């Protein structure tokens, strides 16, 4: 069964500092990978996705993620965070030949002034 692991449950970070959120997945078949963001009291919003091709994927709000097949990782990064980036971030995976999306447990990012 496919699983997604987010290694950090909470990440405090100062405003304008860089942040990296770690995600590892397990799958024996090709997968699509996603990062979703959930702002307080809102639904999930797609940040970025990896389908194939270039391993560096750029998303909205200055976020990017790098797909590493050998390490089965899909870490999310932002070089300089803003207060408005305070949210919960979910890594997710789906099989290329299926339609079921499996989420990690989430990483809560708290940006401090």
């Amino acid at each position: 069964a496919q699983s997604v692991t987010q290694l950090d449950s909470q990440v405090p970070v100062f405003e304008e500092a860089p942040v990296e959120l770690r995600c590892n997945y397990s799958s024996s078949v090709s997968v699509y990978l996603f990062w979703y963001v959930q702002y307080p009291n809102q639904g999930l919003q797609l940040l970025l996705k990896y389908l194939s091709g270039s391993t560096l994927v750029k998303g909205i709000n200055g976020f990017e993620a790098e797909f590493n097949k050998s390490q089965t990782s899909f870490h999310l990064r932002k070089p300089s965070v803003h207060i408005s980036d305070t949210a919960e971030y979910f890594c997710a995976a789906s099989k290329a030949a299926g339609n079921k999306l499996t989420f990690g447990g989430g990483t809560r990012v708290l940006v401090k002034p």
Partner: protein
Amino acid sequence: EAGVAQSPRYKIIEKRQSVAFWCNPISGHATLYWYQQILGQGPKLLIQFQNNGVVDDSQLPKDRFSAERLKGVDSTLKIQPAKLEDSAVYLCASSPPGTVPGELFFGEGSRLTVL
């Protein structure tokens, strides 16, 4: 374009009572999903519809949960009777035909508190 609409946003009930949540997906989206998000956890798929047919309900607790999508548009998720562990946010999502598997559009969720 209007997003996925859900109601009610908040609901508080006693255990053993029943509750229903409603979802209206984005127009033209054939696939509709219900996810359960327990506090501190990632969303878990409860049921997936393709038009008005069920594609996957393997994680739906069928002894107390039911869902329907009449006419392939709106959907209702019902819990009867509710248990304390059903306290969660119930997220509805939809996706259009031909989209990448996993690229979903979510509503704001319905937060259920069972006392």
